[in-house]
């Protein structure tokens, strides 16, 4: 028994030594901190922004977690976090709940997304109409040949109900409950991974996920141009001009929500300003998303003016 105690003591000392030696941060008194949770579409983007921000503001304690816009909003309403990432607008009933809890929700527009429809590279489809996409995801169109493809069953990939992308796509495009046959994947990346391996798959992902690390379109999936109706031209979400001009039918702003107005010069305010800055917008573009347009910027400025 003495040997066992000796063993564990040495083990403990070893573990603590490891922890001690690999800590290379100076001990500062109470650190400023930010807890950010929410949209999976935004999680990588915001993590990148935080990392860049911290280069200029070292010593702050910031954590980012995904899980879906629903997660962020729920955490916001539960009073657990400082900033919620949400790829959809907060619903009226959620705003009601917030009011009942004494929160004054502030909306901040982070970037613009062109929600992209992806299929396998070998899929012969060249474009899709919004109406066709809706029918496919409702389960009314079940075979690729109905939209000009092969005679194969369509395999639907989507997100979980926690996802803002799930909600936005459903409310905006499908306008009906999703087909129960849809496979609910864990995140944007899971959808990309699934579609690139599935010849008959179709999925919807944030535009940041269809580009590789050089901001070029990925070669392992095919991004389908979307047309509003038969008379309109089909537009690809990779065409940033078209997206900015509002020609891409499934463009959307993506948001961040705060529980109250932040305090002047607080970490949160500085972070938001960083996101709006040129460097921040660069990072947003590098992550594959689109920078905010003028209207968005005005709204944000209005919000920032209110901070005293």
């Amino acid at each position: 028994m003495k040997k066992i105690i000796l063993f564990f003591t040495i083990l403990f000392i070893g573990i603590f030594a490891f922890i001690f030696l690999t800590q290379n941060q100076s001990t500062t008194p109470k650190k400023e901190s930010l807890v950010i949770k929410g949209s999976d579409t935004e999680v990588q983007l915001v993590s990148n922004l935080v990392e860049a921000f911290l280069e200029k503001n070292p010593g702050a304690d910031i954590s980012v977690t995904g899980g879906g816009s629903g997660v962020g909003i729920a955490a916001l309403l539960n009073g657990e976090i400082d900033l919620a990432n949400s790829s959809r607008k907060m619903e009226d009933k959620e705003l009601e709940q917030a009011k009942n809890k004494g929160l004054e929700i502030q909306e901040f527009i982070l970037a613009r997304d062109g929600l992209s429809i992806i299929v396998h590279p070998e899929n012969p489809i060249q474009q899709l109409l919004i109406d066709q996409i809706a029918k496919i995801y409702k389960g009314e169109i079940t075979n690729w040949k109905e939209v000009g493809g092969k005679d194969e069953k369509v395999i639907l990939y989507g997100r979980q109900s926690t996802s803002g992308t799930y909600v936005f796509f459903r409310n905006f495009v499908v306008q009906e409950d999703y087909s129960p046959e849809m496979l609910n994947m864990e995140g944007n990346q899971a959808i990309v991974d699934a579609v690139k391996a599935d010849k008959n798959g179709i999925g919807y992902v944030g535009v940041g996920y269809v580009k590789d690390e050089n901001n070029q379109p990925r070669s392992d999936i095919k991004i389908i141009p979307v047309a509003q109706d038969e008379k309109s031209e089909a537009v690809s979400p990779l065409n940033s001009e078209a997206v900015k001009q509002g020609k891409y039918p499934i463009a959307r702003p993506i948001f961040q929500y705060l529980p109250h107005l932040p305090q002047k010069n607080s970490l949160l305010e500085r972070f938001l300003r960083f996101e709006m800055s040129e460097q921040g917008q660069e990072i947003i573009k590098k992550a594959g998303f689109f920078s905010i347009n003028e209207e968005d910027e005005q709204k944000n400025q209005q919000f920032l003016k209110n901070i005293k």
Partner: protein
Amino acid sequence: MNFKKNVHFSENLPRLIFGATAALTILSLISIFLFLLISGVGAFKEIGIKEFFLGTNWNPTSFHTPSWGIFSLIAGTLIISILALFIALPFGLSIAIYLSEIASPKMREMLKPLIEMIASIPSVVLGLLGLLFLAPLIAKIFHLSNGLNALTASILVAIAALPTIASICEDTLSSVSLRFREASLALGTTKWTTIKKVVIPAAGSGLVAAIMLGLGRIIGETMIVLMVAGNSRAFPHSFLDPVRPMTANIAIEIKEVVVGSLHWQGLFAIGLTLFLITFVINLLADILVHRRHSYEN
């Protein structure tokens, strides 16, 4: 007088401390059931027990009206349980028979720990291997679009439950009294006939207990199914359909619920259901094992 007091104190103190520890522990374990009950029972009231268990559509965030039937989820759990058990049981029993009846003691010493090491493979690792290797393989074999379905998940879950089944079967088989075997062999039967007709039946209830404990493990598996079972809400019709068991559903949706909402209560109700199912299965297995022990003694 002092002497007696000292003895008294140092005897009562440990009793007090251990008693307090035990009380704290037992209280927290009881509170598991209580908290689940408190958080979940509201759902049963609002949704209605019949609708909850028999409704086939679980869609709390529906475009129209939310629906709260967990039957598809139960079906998902059931399909994976049956399939995984179907794979793990013969496998586990074979391994147990080998270890207890056929292998030399040295082999047994070496192999039994290795089999038990399989139990320490974290399920997220099995899920990862499923995503990287097994799912594409299954897709190729069955000419499917993708390998995210009940079959893929069941194979991995079977691997996770295998050590439990094998280990307990082995314990049970080797605890069958030597006299039974000797008597049978003395009558001129082969070793296999002895195993088949004497040892296994004698181990009977212990083997059933092993199956039940394995089943409990299988039902409770979350990560593997979360990663490779497909998670579609539709009612599954075959082993190659994607499924959404109760465990995965909880893990997926719990993060988006507002505390106290009906959705929150609904998920806790599912958790309560899982708790009761696994607890009862374990209980029955336990009773079986204890009846054996008293029978053997």
